[in-house]
């Protein structure tokens, strides 16, 4: 088996068995802290000796979470709560939940009562006016709050130099993931599902470990002949996770040449570089973030970003993967559509859901879209 294939298998293994990963870290004596979408100060958590572990829910049936959430809350949060109730996250010391959308505001509130395991809820409250002085001060205070919770309840230890080390690891990870996205746009031999595995595995691994694998994978990719035969699309949305969904791309010879997916590339756009202390750099990172449905974006620059990405990556079209009941994304959609239409970039929307088993509707939509792009 080629090294490239081995690496792809490894990414797949990690992406599809988070519990195994979690148990591995626990067996190594590490403390693990859950991190909930869309953003959390992972670098800070990492620097204090914890393994930040992505908690984005899973494709499961919702039963007991229904006692807490009405049906019109997104399936990511419903499934996080469902899994929490059933002990799937047992072993986590804490869970850090940001309040970046209305539904997220309630997750921590429900968590406190629904989940009986001893997993501490740590709120991360980000400002929306994040660039100005008061916004930065508030981001810092919220980081301090997370830090204090980790220190007081979980015996974490903070040190600015340690944080700097974590920033270096995370900045490097960002760089590698950006490169990955770019390089995959020239290698359509890597399927949509395989691409997902690389991105998804990042949430279940220490970034220093993921860095090694991705760096090696990128080298292997360089040895692979370029191939751009498939239909080229950009994906945008919160999540592009379901293997059944990704199979539709692969079955229809569509390759993802770039993404604006919250679970994927949105995580890696901004580095923590400027500031006096490492903590200041992390504050500066958040101040510089944007182009995301849950971050105040007055000029809807996100739409321009998608348009520009589609042009740069020579995409044939953009696929909007709308997570059902995600109102931040639903609002953005109109502007994204209008911007793409104006630029003459083909686009299509399809609704997805973690509880969806049958993607017939999406299949038809994407098949028709593909036909149209010919």
């Amino acid at each position: 088996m080629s090294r490239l294939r081995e690496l792809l298998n490894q990414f797949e293994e990690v992406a599809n068995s988070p519990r195994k990963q979690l148990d591995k870290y626990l067996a190594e004596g590490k403390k693990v802290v859950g991190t909930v979408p869309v953003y959390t100060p992972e670098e800070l958590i990492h620097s204090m000796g914890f393994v930040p572990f992505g908690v984005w829910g899973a494709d499961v049936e919702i039963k007991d979470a229904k006692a807490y959430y009405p049906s019109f809350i997104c399936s990511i949060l419903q499934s996080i709560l469902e899994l929490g109730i059933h002990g799937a996250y047992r072993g986590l010391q804490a869970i850090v939940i940001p309040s970046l959308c209305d539904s997220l505001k309630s997750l921590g509130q429900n968590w406190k009562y629904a989940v009986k395991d001893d997993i501490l809820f740590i709120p991360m409250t980000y400002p929306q006016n994040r660039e100005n002085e008061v916004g930065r001060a508030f981001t810092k205070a919220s980081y301090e709050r997370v830090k204090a919770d980790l220190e007081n309840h979980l015996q974490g230890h903070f040190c600015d130099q340690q944080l700097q080390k974590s920033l270096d690891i995370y900045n490097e990870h960002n760089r590698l993931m950006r490169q990955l996205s770019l390089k995959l746009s020239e290698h359509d031999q890597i399927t949509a599902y395989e691409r997902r595995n690389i991105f998804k595995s990042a949430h279940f691994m220490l970034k220093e470990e993921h860095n090694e694998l991705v760096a090696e994978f990128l080298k292997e990719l360089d040895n692979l002949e370029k191939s751009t035969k498939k239909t080229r699309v950009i994906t945008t949305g919160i999540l592009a996770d379901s293997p059944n969904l990704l199979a539709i791309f692969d079955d229809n010879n569509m390759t993802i040449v770039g993404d604006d997916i919250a679970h994927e590339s949105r995580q890696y756009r901004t580095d923590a570089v400027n500031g006096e202390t490492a903590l200041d750099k992390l504050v500066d990172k958040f101040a510089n973030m944007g182009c995301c449905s849950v971050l105040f974006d007055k000029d809807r620059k996100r739409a321009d970003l998608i348009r520009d990405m589609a042009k740069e990556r020579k995409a044939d079209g953009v696929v909007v993967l709308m997570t059902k009941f995600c109102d931040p994304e639903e609002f953005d959609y109109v502007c994204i559509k209008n911007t793409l239409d104006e630029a003459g970039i083909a686009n299509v929307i399809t609704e997805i859901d973690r509880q969806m088993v049958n993607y017939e509707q999406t299949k038809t939509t994407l098949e028709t879209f593909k036909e149209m792009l010919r």
Partner: protein
Amino acid sequence: MAEEVKKDVKPEKKPIDPNSSKYKLGKIIQDHYREVAEAKERGEKIGWCASNFPQEIFQTLGVKVCYPENQAAAIAARGAGEKMCDIAESDGYSNDICAYARISLAYMKIKDAPEQNMPQPDFLLCCNNICNCMIKWYESISKELNIPLILIDIPFNPDYEVSDAQLAYVKGQFLDAIKQLEEITGKKWDDKKFEEIMAISNRTSRAWLEATSYTKYHPSPLNGFDLLNHMAVAVCARGTVEAAEAFETLVEEYKENVKTGNSTFRGEEKHRIMFEGIACWPHLRVTATGLKSRGMNMVATIYADAFGLLYDNFDELIKCYCNVPNAVSLEKARDNRIKIIEKTDPKGLLVHTNRSCKLWSSFMYEMSRQIGEATDIPVVSFDGDQADPRNFSEAQYDTRVQGLFEIMEENKREAVQ
């Protein structure tokens, strides 16, 4: 989250007494829309404003604004909710989005709704202490109309008290908003005027809180649904003497009712309930009748306190805006409601699971369970929507209310025995 005035004023046999609260409150709303339209005609810059944006800012500056939430409620109550939602949906806005936002986005596009018109905005004043949906909604308008948007971000507070960090953050934005609004409108800030506005706002809030407190009487001298109607005034005119006077008149009338045994609740008050959530404006009559016909009066609502913002100084003012109902933790939200229940003595809780409002509905199940347990009253919920008529089923509503009624009857019988 803001509310609206009576939807269909029945033809009066005699003219309304100009000294009555009804006349005064109605006039405030009329004047409000007229004044903002006149300002626009004069060439002044006018804004669209979120219901819980610190009104002290533009009142002090003498800048006129109108409220999309009030407008959306009015449009919905007058029967055009579905039509407007359809327009927004045909533009690509999902029917999952809050119906107030959909109605407003439709209005921004068609610019005419006979049910409730208001002038187009030159700027936007947004505050997300009620929901982040507000941010997305105003972003969309700002982008589409290419007008400035001032956001005062008041994050959801997961803790019980407002932290110093949050206070400083919101304060800083408050001051920044003043500067931005001065630049946009060319008007100048005046500290003395600010003091005056704060004083008037407190006077209005006091009167509002006093008026709403009258539901504590047995029987209550008012139908609690009245409060949902009067809230439009609490939203759009809190910083005006007229509003203070109108609520003071309301207090006098309730006082008189207590003396004479009258009530705006028609019929015998057999049961007292707390109603949780916004009214279903498109189905106001059905929802009110379902209660009235069973002798169930609404005597408690979180809204009573929501617009009673009392403060002595700037810091307290900021804290008031940080503590509005949707911005606080489950525990604080729960305790606030329990306090209201203790004051007003409802014996049942009817919860509107509002399809439009994710934040309001998303920890309501757990919170209402806790409230029910703490106060030992039955809790029943129904599915509805404050402005999209399609998300409400009369049959379900009736069954649920009947269910609550039966438990309350039973409890009452047991209490007597």
